[in-house]
């Protein structure tokens, strides 16, 4: 029981962080049809910007400024790079972001070096928020949840209460129609790309010090974010939300299960031959592969994803 409670908290915290990343990716994909391979790079940039700002003026200004900076960088990249690649079709766009991912990584190497940087949790947020069954729940995790939920609410309000939000929402389901209605689609694209990358930047700001700010951090989350977007359904924010929490919890709970595949099959009455390596693998070992398995299964059996409305 206590284990379930703790794991659930951990899973939700991680899931919410993942949602911050995947919401931006989903927005960008829905609007522009671009699978932004470099999305996690903006997450990394957010962390590094926040680190740099925190060394000058502290953590709190960075929380606000770093995502805006990342968004600005994203908007510029859209304006002067992606828009050009767009003329050559989706494959060129995709490859552009693919190349961008490692140019960003090299630039980070160049500017901040190849090792991790000392991006610290602010003192105010250091320590335990409460103790549950003898396990501390850190304040910072609570803060992460707060920011994520705050962002979720703000995003919801933006999408449902503002004009630009309504246009974006319309574009999620009927991109052609929005264009036909004479909206300045290129500028909306730039805004959405900037906004989406800013969300990734925000995730970086609060994820960078919770974990480690280092040049490999983009690669570490890159593919999992894709999994979320596919599992949730391309273009569906609600789907991305559910998939983020789902994958956060899957990753957390599967660690807890030390039973092997043999045991799983035994549960349903199948005895696997002894000795095979597959049979001896435990669910814990498989934990990080499970999202990919889920993704492949989703793509085969329900290609539009959990909540998606259109197939890619």
């Amino acid at each position: 029981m206590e284990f379930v409670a703790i794991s659930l908290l951990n899973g939700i915290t991680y899931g919410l962080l993942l949602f911050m990343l995947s919401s931006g990716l989903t927005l960008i994909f829905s609007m522009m049809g671009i699978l932004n391979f470099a999305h996690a790079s903006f997450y990394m940039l957010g962390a590094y910007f926040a680190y740099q700002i925190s060394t000058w003026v502290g953590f709190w200004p960075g929380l606000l400024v770093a995502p805006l900076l990342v968004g600005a960088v994203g908007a510029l990249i859209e304006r002067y790079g992606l828009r050009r690649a767009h003329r050559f079709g989706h494959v060129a766009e995709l490859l552009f972001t693919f190349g961008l991912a490692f140019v960003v990584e090299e630039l980070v190497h160049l500017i901040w070096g190849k090792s991790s940087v000392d991006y610290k949790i602010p003192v105010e947020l250091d320590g335990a928020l409460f103790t549950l069954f003898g396990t501390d729940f850190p304040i910072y995790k609570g803060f992460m949840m707060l920011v994520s939920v705050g962002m979720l609410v703000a995003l919801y309000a933006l999408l449902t209460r503002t004009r630009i939000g309504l246009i974006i929402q319309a574009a999620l389901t009927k991109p052609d129609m929005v264009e036909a209605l004479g909206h300045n689609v290129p500028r909306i694209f730039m805004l959405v790309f900037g906004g989406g990358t800013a969300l990734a930047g925000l995730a970086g700001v609060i994820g960078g010090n919770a974990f480690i700010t280092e040049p490999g951090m983009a690669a570490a989350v890159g593919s999992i974010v894709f999994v979320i977007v596919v599992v949730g359904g391309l273009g569906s924010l609600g789907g991305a939300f559910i998939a983020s929490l789902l994958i956060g919890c899957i990753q957390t709970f599967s660690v807890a299960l030390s039973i092997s595949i043999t045991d799983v099959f035994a549960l349903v009455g199948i005895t696997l031959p002894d000795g095979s390596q597959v049979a001896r693998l435990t669910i814990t070992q498989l934990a990080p592969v499970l999202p990919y398995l889920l993704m492949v299964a989703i793509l085969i059996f329900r290609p539009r994803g959990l909540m998606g409305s259109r197939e890619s």
Partner: protein
Amino acid sequence: MNPALLSRGRLAVWGGCLALAFALPLVLKSGFVISLLCQIGIMVVFSLSYNMLLGQTGLLSFGHAVYYGLGAFATMHLLNAIGKGGGPLTTALLPFAGGLAGLAAGVLLGYVTTRKAGTTFAMITLGIGEMVAACSLMFPAVFGGEGGVSGNRVVGKETVLGFSWGPQVEMYGLIVLWAFACTVAMFALTQTPLGRIANAVRDNPERAEFVGYDTERVRFLMVILSGFFAGIAGGLSALNYEIVTAETLNAHTSGVVLLIAFVGGIGFFYGPIIGAILVTVMQIVIGGMTHAWLLYFGLFFLFMVLVAPGGIASLIAVQRALWQAGLFRRMLPHYLAVALPVLVLLAGLVGLIELGYALLSGDAGVGAGDTATKVLGMQLHLNAPGPWLTALAVTGIGLMLTRWIGGRLGVAWNATLATLHGDKQ
């Protein structure tokens, strides 16, 4: 369309390439260069097999290394299993077994992946690639764990026609033969009904269905065949390096083959060949000179995506068309004129990047700007404004000149292209 596959011209090109490949080690005796040529040969086969998907069938795959890697592991395990029972001839034929393994993997995974095309296909290959790569570290008995699986390509004391495959140069010969055979086979494939229908499926899958073709089946067959050739490339790499590690089937390797094919040009059969050679050689030259080679390479890739998405091959093809139309001469002065400002711009940019590397992560470490540091062979003080201003100025001048002269090139280019297409109409 010439009805003969081996027209006289084509025969000359093929023969010339083969002769050149065999002649190279006679000129370049260095063992390193030969290793390099071996790697190029392997990458040629691998990237051509990749282009069977991307260029010919329109399938963007992020998991092609799976076939390459499985082919390599199969070859290596077979080599070790045969052990002393084999001989040089068996060894020489082993890459075929790698091909069969790639083919089998293609049947298995292709069945799942080819249900869909487009973005879904790209993502599902990414997922499957990640999964296979992650699994490869979990089964050390098959994939050898971190150390990989190693073997010895020299079996016994006997030789075939004097070849034991031990010396690298003999291995090179073997690779050339395989690469040549595979290239011919893959080219021939483009000239068959399946190859052409794959093009049709790439261009317009819906229409292909309405002329009687099951697009899923076409994609499936192409994935299988492509897996076969990727497996052969993997088998060659197993023989060449005598070690296969999990790295051969991970996302990096898949990314590399995509880069090679794209930079070379996916719209042309020979594009990936150019890509394989160019990427390798670029890394020698730039990688040997600077720490920042990854950055340069990344920028080059972005440049190619934005400026020449058809790859090097498309640039060549356009020039060839101009040449044939007698228009190349009209463009030549413009090319020469634009070369100078571009060089100035490049010099400025390179200066800035190198200064940056030297200051921020370079030789003396962070913050070591107060000592004179070597940058591009010059002894410079990094905390003095001089070098920076110079580099900035050069970049600025280069940028201005490039825009100015480049603009004129653009005008001339459009005019020439208009003439070219006008002639054709």
